[in-house]
């Protein structure tokens, strides 16, 4: 059977050629994965059990970094508290307000495209310029927010210059970027088939019922996605706090360390004091926190996230 054999050879030749081309074309990623991800994960785990200052080789100290972090480092506790405080406010506020705005914007109203642009725009503004803008907007005496509050006879809070208001300041600034979440919801809303709404309407469901019984369940995977990304993002808040602390408020890490967020503290330990081992331990604790929070969300998701044609038993 010469024919079949040549076919088999041809097929096998193609198999090998594809395998080589495939790995070859994916090679940059493999290399990058090894050098910038896999290698560093292993190394940073190792560093977390050492005292390491780059100039001298790492010295094994066992669990000492973790012990100090958990029992002897009040700043670590403050930074964790600050971060949790911020995340606790910003995650629900972003997820809910984003949904609220997207719902409004999904109505048939004049100027929809313009509204979408206006609300979405602030979310692409980031970096130092954004932090500088908000330093001025939040200025207690001449800033925009307190000026506007004064129109209604409200005396605005001192924002960044008080320990009580420093974190809410950052929350307000983050909410300005809620358009990013909104636009993801909008994409989700547009994916909900119209016939579901029509069918429910025929069955006599009013707009409110349709919203809670159709829109929200159909949108639940998007809501879930936004919760996860917003948790991950809020635990890593850095640039705004760094810029404010270094150049604006000028008091260490905000009044009474109120802006000492986790990654800011990690950054100071690593690159201010060159305690790479200690900072690596902090990075791993952060990783575990984020992982646990994400897993909890996935667990809870079973009870409320609805997947069209999902396989039995979940996600």
């Amino acid at each position, binding site marked *: 059977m010469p024919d079949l054999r040549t076919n088999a050879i041809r097929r096998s030749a193609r198999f090998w050629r594809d395998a080589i*081309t*495939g790995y070859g074309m994916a090679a940059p*990623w493999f290399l990058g994965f090894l050098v910038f991800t896999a290698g*560093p994960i292993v190394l940073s785990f190792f560093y977390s059990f050492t005292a390491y200052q780059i100039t001298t080789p790492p010295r094994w100290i066992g669990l000492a970094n973790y012990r100090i972090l958990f029992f002897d480092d009040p700043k670590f506790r403050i930074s964790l508290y600050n971060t949790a405080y911020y995340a606790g406010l910003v995650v629900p506020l972003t997820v809910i307000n984003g949904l609220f705005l997207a719902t409004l914007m999904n109505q048939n109203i004049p100027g929809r495209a313009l509204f979408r642009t206006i609300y979405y725009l602030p979310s692409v503004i980031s970096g130092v310029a954004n932090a500088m803008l*908000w330093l001025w907007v939040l200025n207690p005496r001449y800033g925009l927010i307190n000026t506007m509050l004064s129109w209604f006879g409200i005396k605005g809070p001192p924002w960044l210059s008080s320990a009580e208001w420093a974190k809410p300041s950052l929350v307000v600034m983050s909410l300005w970027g809620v358009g990013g979440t909104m636009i993801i919801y909008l994409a989700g809303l547009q994916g909900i088939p119209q016939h579901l709404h029509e069918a429910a309407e025929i069955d006599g469901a009013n707009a409110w019922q349709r919203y809670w019984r159709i829109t929200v369940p159909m949108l639940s995977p998007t809501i879930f996605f936004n919760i996860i990304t917003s948790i991950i993002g809020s635990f890593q808040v850095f640039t705004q706090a760094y810029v404010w602390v270094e150049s604006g408020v000028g008091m260490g890490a905000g009044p009474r360390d109120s802006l000492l967020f986790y990654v800011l503290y990690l950054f100071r330990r690593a690159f201010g004091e060159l305690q790479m081992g200690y900072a690596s331990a902090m990075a791993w604790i952060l990783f575990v926190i*984020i992982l646990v929070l994400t897993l909890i969300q996935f667990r809870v998701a079973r009870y409320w996230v609805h997947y069209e044609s999902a396989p039995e038993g979940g996600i």
Partner: protein
Amino acid sequence: MQARRAQPFWWQSRTLRSYLTRGTVFTVLLLGSVLFLFPLIWMLSTSLKTNEQVYRVPTVWIPNPIAWENYPRALSRMPFLLFLRNSCITSFIPVIGAVLSSSMVAYSFARVQWPGRNFWFIVLIATMMLPGQVTMIPVYVLYSKLKWINTFLPLTVPWFFGGAFYVFLLRQFFLGIPQELSDAAFIDGCSHPGIWWRIIIPLAKPALATVAVFTFLFTWNDFLGPLLYLREERLYTLQVGLQYFRLQNQVNWQELMAASLVVLMPTLVIFFLGQRYFVQGITLTGLKG
């Protein structure tokens, strides 16, 4: 057929209710958009005020006279052109790197059959969940051993290794390009790299534009990277330069806002020109659930 209901009273009429709802929604959105736009208007307005106008109560909204000189004055307080050049280097090179490498890797994941492909794709997705702080320190150590600190290399070279998010996004797009096109090219004797370069890239321009826009915005606004690796003034990007501007000068809001607005400008321009590419990024990565 809709079931026939009893004749409603005029205040229950659907048209009226619909107008009321839409009117309310419109008003809420209008008020909200004023709030969302105010900070930017405020920034522009402050950047054109004289020092006296900045602190005047009640607030001056439209500066008179307009202090255009704030802009040249602010920019002359720092080596602006140098920082601009550095920002361009650390933004445009990554854009080229990300588009080329991510699209090639994505092609391999989307269109070439190789053993272990699905496994590695899951690994690739998993790397997106990893917080950057975990790898930050060893990567910094690596660059310092390589003597790459105070060069642009740490901010450009890694972009040539296919970023996970972009590979994911492009793979989704490539999967949507009809297979027949590559089959035809195969029969004509075209190889995989040839198909990637001659067929897929030209067809995937909108998705590649999305990758370019995301990469540019990320690198242009990146602060942590330049802060870590560019420790000498001659290497500062505009982001670091703006921070430095602030530290060097007494509080001078009008000039700080002018400088910040200049730094923001590319972001604003790209936003208005490329808004559809952002939205496409969302639809492509399947975030719509």
